């Protein structure tokens, strides 16, 4: 009746492994410090500071050291759901397309006449031609500029759509190109957000794409969502533009190809600057917080070779003229060019505090966002509230475990004790799997574990009730036990498969806390099936083989 030796060894080995991997979670803080230290030492190339050595010694390195991740609701931190304004990019694309269209049509001036760009919605290019009779030719010329779109579904499509409204040609991005642009924009935004968050160096941030145009950002340990928003919500588009004039009139007419932008530190002052930038932040290779010669906070920057050349040529040609440093449509400063700046490096001064200059340097290093972000959801959870939740969850878990165990013993006596032993192994296995796969434990997740304890004994109850029935039918102890396990199995399977089904659906459809709950519930169901069917059976069989009871009472 005993199962083969290899099977017994395998089951005990799984249990022992489970225990070994669950144990680090009992010593959460020292293990975490040990892990942080070993990571830091690996980054430093094997060189450790005395503090790191001390932290490393907190946990033996031969022991498993993976831990369950604590969710934001337990650790505290900030959660943001951002929507990338992908349409912003259409405007830039179309505006960038205009010179090409103009040049192509000018080459055909004899047939199409003069061309003029008409005012239009952002993302739409309207070109009026002087000779309507030449419209067919004009459309042909513009269409020839289109590029094929390379996507999985957009085969054979081009990047622009050309339509005719009277004597006007209307050019827009095609649907396929828009989809491709959207995807690129979101991907770029994701990368830049990741770089910015990494620059400030917090522990394990989560930065995920959600749906077509959304990005989920979770940063544990940060003070507030507002702080996080300041870091990632700024577009940080830096440009260097020629200055055409200075005014205090907010409604002043800037003139063609110029824009009127406010000054960031002089209230009521506006600059008229040329729309086309000399150099942009994309050509920056480095930015560092620094101080200017007067000891005020500033940002040092360096251009890449092409940026340096453009900047050098412009400054050489415009000595004595002012130029504007523009950040997100505000003029930070408008110094006068004293001499040519050939080396490609410079300094941005403004009315910065040290914090602001440090933040600006971070933003410039990480690069500008391709489009603006709007925030749909923001949550800040303080670390104290998280700790309170952990404490409450732990207390509830321990009391719940004791209560369920006592109830099982009251109902099933010695068999209850054996079931409780299996339950303890179940919890250990659950934590072991959660740690190894790096799952995130949330507050509802803790509730899931407590609930699992209540439901985990269900399989044992099914088995024991079956054994009781078999005993009542007059069968011997070992035969009853065998039949009990056998007959209960289909009920256990069916009930657990349906429960796993709901856990999977929760995981797929749900978000945030619901997902955390689904993960613990799903894993809990699997481990409880294993412990109830294999571990309990092994324990009971071992006991039976050892004691050989003539009769049993379940």
């Amino acid at each position, binding site marked *: 009746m005993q199962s083969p030796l290899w099977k017994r060894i395998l089951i005990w080995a799984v249990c022992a492994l489970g225990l070994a991997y669950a144990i680090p979670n009992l010593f959460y803080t020292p293990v975490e410090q040990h892990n942080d230290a070993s990571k830091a030492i690996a980054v430093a190339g094997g060189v450790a500071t005395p503090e790191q050595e001390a932290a490393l010694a907190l946990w033996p390195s031969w022991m498993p050291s993976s831990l369950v991740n604590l969710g934001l609701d337990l650790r505290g931190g900030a959660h943001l759901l951002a929507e990338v304004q992908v349409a912003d990019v259409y405007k830039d694309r179309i505006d960038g397309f205009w010179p090409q269209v103009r040049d192509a049509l000018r080459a055909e001036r004899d047939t199409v006449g003069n061309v003029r760009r008409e005012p239009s919605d952002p993302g739409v290019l309207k070109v009026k031609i002087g000779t309507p009779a030449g419209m067919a030719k004009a459309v042909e010329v513009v269409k020839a500029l289109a590029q094929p779109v390379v996507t999985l579904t957009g085969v054979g499509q081009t990047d622009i759509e050309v339509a005719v409204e009277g004597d006007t040609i209307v050019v827009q991005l095609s649907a396929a190109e828009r989809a491709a642009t959207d995807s690129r924009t979101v991907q770029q935004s994701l990368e830049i957000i990741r770089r910015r968050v990494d620059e400030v160096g917090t522990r394990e941030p989560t930065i995920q794409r959600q749906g077509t145009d959304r990005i989920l950002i979770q940063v544990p340990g940060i003070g507030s969502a507002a702080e996080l928003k300041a870091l990632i919500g700024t577009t940080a588009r830096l440009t260097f533009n020629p200055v055409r004039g200075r005014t205090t009139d907010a409604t002043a007419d800037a003139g063609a190809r110029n824009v009127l932008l406010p000054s960031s530190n002089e209230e009521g002052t506006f600059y008229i600057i040329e729309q086309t930038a000399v150099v942009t932040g994309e050509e920056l290779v480095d930015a560092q917080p620094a101080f200017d010669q007067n000891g005020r906070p500033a940002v040092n920057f360096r251009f890449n070779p092409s940026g340096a050349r453009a900047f050098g040529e412009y400054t050489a040609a415009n000595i004595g003229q002012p130029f504007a440093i523009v950040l997100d449509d505000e003029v930070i400063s408008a110094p006068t060019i004293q001499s040519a700046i050939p080396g490609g490096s410079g300094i941005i001064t403004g009315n910065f505090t040290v914090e602001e200059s440090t933040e600006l340097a971070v933003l410039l290093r990480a690069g500008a966002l391709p489009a603006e972000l709007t925030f749909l959801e923001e949550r800040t959870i303080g670390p104290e509230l998280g700790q309170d939740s952990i404490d409450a969850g732990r207390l509830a878990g321990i009391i719940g475990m004791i209560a369920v165990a006592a109830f099982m013993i009251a109902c099933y006596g010695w068999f209850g004790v054996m079931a409780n032993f299996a339950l303890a192994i179940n919890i250990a296995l659950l934590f072991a799997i959660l740690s190894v796969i790096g799952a995130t434990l949330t507050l509802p997740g803790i509730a899931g574990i407590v609930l699992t304890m209540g439901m985990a004994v269900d399989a044992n109850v099914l088995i024991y009730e079956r054994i009781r029935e078999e005993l009542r039918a007059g069968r011997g102890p070992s035969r009853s036990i065998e039949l009990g396990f056998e007959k209960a199995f289909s*009920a256990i399977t069916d*009930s657990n498969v349906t429960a796993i089904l*709901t856990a999977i659906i929760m995981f797929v459809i749900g978000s945030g806390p619901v997902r955390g709950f689904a993960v613990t519930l799903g894993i809990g169901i699997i481990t409880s099936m294993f412990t109830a069917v294999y571990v309990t059976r092994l324990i009971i069989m071992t006991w039976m083989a050892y004691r050989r009871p003539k009769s049993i009472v379940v």
Partner: protein
Amino acid sequence: MRLRLAPEKTNIDFFSLQYITFGASIVAVLLTFLSVATLGLNFGIDFRGGTTIRTESTQAVDVGVYREALSSLGLGDVSITEVFDPVFRADQHVAMIRIQAQEGLEAVTPEIIERVETALRAVDPVITFPSVESVGPKVSSELIWSAALAVAAGSLGILFYVWIRFEWQFAVGTVAALLHDVIVTVGVFSVFQLKFDLTIVAALLTILGYSVNDTVVIFDRLRENLVKYKTMPLRDLMNLSANETLSRTLMTASTTLIALTVLLIFGGDVIRGFVFAMLFGVFVGTYSTLYVAKNIVLFLGLDRSDKSKTDGKPGNEFANIDA
């Protein structure tokens, strides 16, 4: 002496009061629809948009003073409730402030939150803000749909699985029973205007899982008995199956209820609504297993003519285990 929740052999006729019990279930479901239609649900910010701010202070909370402090900010509908919890320290006074979604804004701006915090600090200098959550109307309307979709997908998945493993009548009975549980639980949240947020949806899905678990165990026994007693009327067979598994039904319900009750008392106020929903759901789930699911199968009837063709060991497809 062992604790027995049910005598060794019971012979309860679960259909003796079938018109009353089944009628009560129908009435409860109808009342839920009525309540949701008239009173509606007290949606949390997950589903309605807006901001909740949790405040904590060593000074006692005076809701009136808080309201006074915030009234001048012109934030529209602001609700302030004090939170009580047995695990709070003696000098821990917690309140939840809910601010409606602001016109034309996706998420409440940091400036508004800053103003709220400043206004509250003026009346209570030691106040802290352990959590601030803000959800825009765009996301919240999507969350409602995805929540409804989750419940629907869960039900369909179960319907399909039970249909494959049993017969379609069982599948209909099971799904009817668990929809009953979910609907009645929603009804309780509507009648008592308890806060209904994303975690409650997770609770509803768990109820789905628990309820189906409970029902399937009885159906599994019924499937077995259908083969064993070929001539016994269906009604008696169902009673027999329910009686045979009654002890287990009550045991499992008890252990789950024990775990949930502990969680309700000691788990903290953050998840209380969630735990309450599950606790209630387990009660209703146990009831519906005994009084709803079987009635529907009985009502639909079973085609028992081809049972002789099976191998006489139904439900044993997975039974060849040994350990």
